[in-house]
């Protein structure tokens, strides 16, 4: 195994319920299918749910690593979809609001464990907290998932604004979820991009869109990923197109 430096990608959305976690695990599965070594870390520390979406019942999680001194490798799970996964704990107050020292510890752990991977995805919780900000800063690339819904656009914009104005970061990459077609995806992106340009003086990058497709709820019901279950579906085709864009 080579000790290459992984690309660490944060995936955030501002608003919850826009399909962030679903996109994260499908991106990870698609990249694994292309022989990339991928690690997904559930950083939605207060409301973790990747384990549920994958039908996994973890015995221990990130909380145990941070507070009970369990080795992070013991928590690591190899998923059926081919990527590795570190679960978080759901419904835990201590986790949702990590103290600064714990955020530092979390970052150290991430550096320690990510050696050997091509991609590390950080699935980041909704809203804004120090943890959310810190993890976005820690990642080398920042994906933002947005839907055509006005609250989602507003929250995504607010998230980019806070990270940009507080820390000078730019270069956000947008995925528009649940669109009728890519034309609509592009329209939503252009709208947000024009407001970023006007008020914040930077332009995000368009990664692509995922259409609303009935295979998505079906794959969620089956606790699996649509790129593998329904590889010919329009959602899978569009997701693979995003994968191609990511590596450009």
């Amino acid at each position, binding site marked *: 195994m080579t000790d290459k430096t992984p690309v660490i990608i944060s995936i955030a959305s*501002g*608003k*919850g*319920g826009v399909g962030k976690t679903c996109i994260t695990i499908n991106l990870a599965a698609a990249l694994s299918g292309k022989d990339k070594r991928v690690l997904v870390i559930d950083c939605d520390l*207060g*409301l973790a749910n990747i384990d549920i979406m994958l039908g996994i019942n973890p015995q221990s999680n990130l909380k145990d690593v941070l507070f009970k001194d369990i080795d992070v490798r013991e928590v690591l799970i190899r998923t059926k979809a081919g990527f590795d996964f570190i679960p978080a704990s759901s*419904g835990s*107050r201590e986790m*949702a*609001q990590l103290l600064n020292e714990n955020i530092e510890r979390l970052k150290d752990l991430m550096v320690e464990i990510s050696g050997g991977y091509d991609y590390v995805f950080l699935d980041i*919780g*909704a*809203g*804004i*907290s120090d943890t*959310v900000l810190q993890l976005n800063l820690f990642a080398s690339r920042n994906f933002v998932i947005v839907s055509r819904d*006005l609250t989602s*656009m*507003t*929250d995504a*914009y*607010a*998230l980019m*604004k*806070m990270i940009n104005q507080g820390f000078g970061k730019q270069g956000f990459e947008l995925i528009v979820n649940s669109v009728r077609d890519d034309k609509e995806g592009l329209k*939503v992106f252009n*709208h*947000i991009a*024009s*407001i970023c340009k*006007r*008020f914040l003086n930077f332009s995000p990058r368009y990664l692509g869109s995922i259409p609303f497709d009935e295979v998505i709820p079906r794959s969620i019901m089956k606790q699996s990923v649509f790129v593998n279950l329904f590889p010919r579906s329009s959602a899978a085709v569009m997701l693979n197109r995003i994968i191609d864009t990511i590596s450009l």
Partner: protein
Amino acid sequence: MTISCINNNSSHRRDEKKTVRDLLEEHEKTSYLLTEGSSNKPVSIILLCDSPAPFDKKILDATPHIALHMEDDLLQKVNELHEENIKLRSLSLIDSLTGLFNNRFFWMQLEVEMARTKRTGDLCSLMMIDLDNFKLLNDTFGHLEGDRFLVEFGSILRDNSRSTDLIYRYGGDEFAVIMPATSVPDALRTGKRFQEILEDIPQKTDPAISLSIGVSEYPPVSSYNMNEFVNAADLAMYGAKKGGKNRICVDEKWEMTTRLYNEVNRDEKVALLMEYQ
């Protein structure tokens, strides 16, 4: 269960004393008997007659499940059953000590209110209330005194909430309030009122009983299901306890998004809203 409806036939004269079996057999022949399920073992039978009973009242009395022989009787019986059902249902939905709704009804109604919220687009708030120092009262003055306090506090909640608020004894010394069409700031005001009123009541223990309150709001920041919605209020309530009792905490996810939303100024909001149309 087999339900058989017999449409009375004019051939049955009042003076004809027939057994239920006779009647059933006769109707079966004339195909007036409608049965559902297995006709061999009817569990109960409803006889619908539009004229006075064509059979012996004694037989009917001996077989109470079949004891309906007149339209009036039938109506009366149906009414009685209906009332009985309402009573039984309310018994299983109401907490016998405080008279508030119970935990069982809480989950039933929360589902309804969340569905309503999805349809109407209104907000719904949920408040979890835990009595601070209640154990001290129980341990010092006994459980009867504790129960008396729970009853009194139940009345305080009832008398000081709005007519649309639904109040539950969630369990032990925990109470829940479902607040339809209510945002977090409004819920906080109601919670504060509960606390103030309790403070004005003379109490036996020192420290006195106070309230730790947690509030969450739906539709949520994140796509909460019913458990997560309750859990969010619960966690906020534990936060209030941990933070030193006698205080109100809000679901931190709510606080986090509010903070996010406040980052966007008016011009930006207008741009986001208008230019996309």
